[in-house]
């Protein structure tokens, strides 16, 4: 098994959703570190080691990024595009986690190479179950892209 503690990047503007997701991970006894970004700019700053995250080891990438679509400032889709456009982050596993079931959103997410598209259920039990399965799949079952060296 993997020894190294893995990070989940949670890009979520809603405090409620973020807290509920954290609670779901916590109750699933997940020991992984969850980093929360409040909007698209915050997420990109973290991944690219800019702004408040200047000096962060940019090679330390999250095992999975849970990305909301409807974000202030820079939308989830733009974040996705920026991640895919950058050599260092282009293979990063990205799961779109949204309440939108619009065809348009699903299509543009896959158009920009999202790895997965998951609907946020209103029902907390289903939401917790989704969070648990996402964690299990992306942190345990899925083999991530090889880590790049400097």
């Amino acid at each position: 098994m993997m020894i190294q503690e893995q990070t989940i990047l949670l890009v979520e503007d809603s405090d409620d959703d973020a807290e509920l997701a954290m609670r779901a991970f916590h109750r699933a006894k997940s020991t992984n570190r969850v980093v929360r970004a409040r909007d698209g700019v915050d997420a990109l700053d973290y991944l690219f080691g800019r702004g408040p995250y200047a000096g962060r080891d940019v090679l330390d990438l999250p095992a999975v990024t849970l990305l909301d679509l409807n974000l202030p400032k820079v939308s989830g889709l733009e974040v996705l595009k920026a991640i895919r456009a950058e050599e260092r982050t282009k293979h990063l596993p990205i799961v779109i986690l949204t309440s939108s079931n619009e065809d348009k959103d699903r299509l543009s997410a896959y158009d920009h190479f999202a790895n997965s598209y998951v609907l946020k259920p209103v029902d907390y039990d289903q939401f917790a179950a989704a969070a648990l399965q996402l964690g299990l799949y992306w942190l345990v079952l899925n083999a991530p892209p090889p880590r790049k060296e400097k």
Partner: protein
Amino acid sequence: MAGVRQANPGTSVPTKNYVLNLGPVHLILTVGAMGILVIFLLTILLAAAVLFAAVASRRRRQAEAANRELTNEVRERKRAEEEVNKLNAELERRVVERTRQLDAANKELEAFSYSVSHDLRAPLRAIDGFSKAILDEYAETLDKQACHYLQRVRTGIQKMSGLIDDLLNLSSMSRAMLRKESINLTALARDVVAELQDREPLRKVVIGIADGLSAVGDAQLITIVLVNLFGNAWKYTAKRPEAQIAFGSENQGNEVVFYIRDNGAGFDMAYAAKLFAPFQRLHQDSEFEGNGIGLATIQRIVLRHGGRVWVKAAVNEGATFFFTLGDVQ
């Protein structure tokens, strides 16, 4: 005397003269006759000329009149053509304008449903999540009644969440592209009924589905119509010991009218107009559960196919829903 006679030889002269004079008289007569003839001919000619001139002038006047008429007609036609062109241009302008308005309305609707799907669900998720958190973590400190109330909160949320889904479905149904194909309605109806029976195997309902029912339409949307209509018939016959549902068609004029008839609870026709509006219900939840979106959805789908839907019913005597799908036989 002779002299006289001689002097008057003229007595014979006249004879001679007569002979001699015969020429001029003849000539005169001839000339006169010819003159008369000529005059006569001239008169005829003149009369003919006058007549001809009169006719010609009449013809000319007629021709002129016809010409004027023609000119008028041409002018009239030109004017009409210009009018038609103007109207056409106006029509085209209005079509463009209406299309733009429709596009704008559609975009607005799209933005609205987008906003509904995101913004209305988020707080619901929070209410549900945190009431669940209280139930999970503080169940020991809460008494039974408090837990029951929290459960009621969560039930309400489930219901609202369902309503949001239905609203979104309804709006996406109005926007989705129609993919028309030939549909075997008899087979489709049998599938729908089989599923209802599967869900409630204990219910005894006499189902009659006519053979050979078919239509042209979007199979996915028509399935929704049948699921809703059979679902209603199934639901509202629940309290009948001998429940019956029939599905068939009849020709009315050059239209095929499909119907689904049940002998269920029915309703007062005074409220029939309300029935097809979203979220309008004629029964309380405690009587028959529902969210009032089914018939609104059916109406949208049927209208989009160019058809109509209507109902005949009476309290406690069942209801018959009729619909057409816009195809003419």
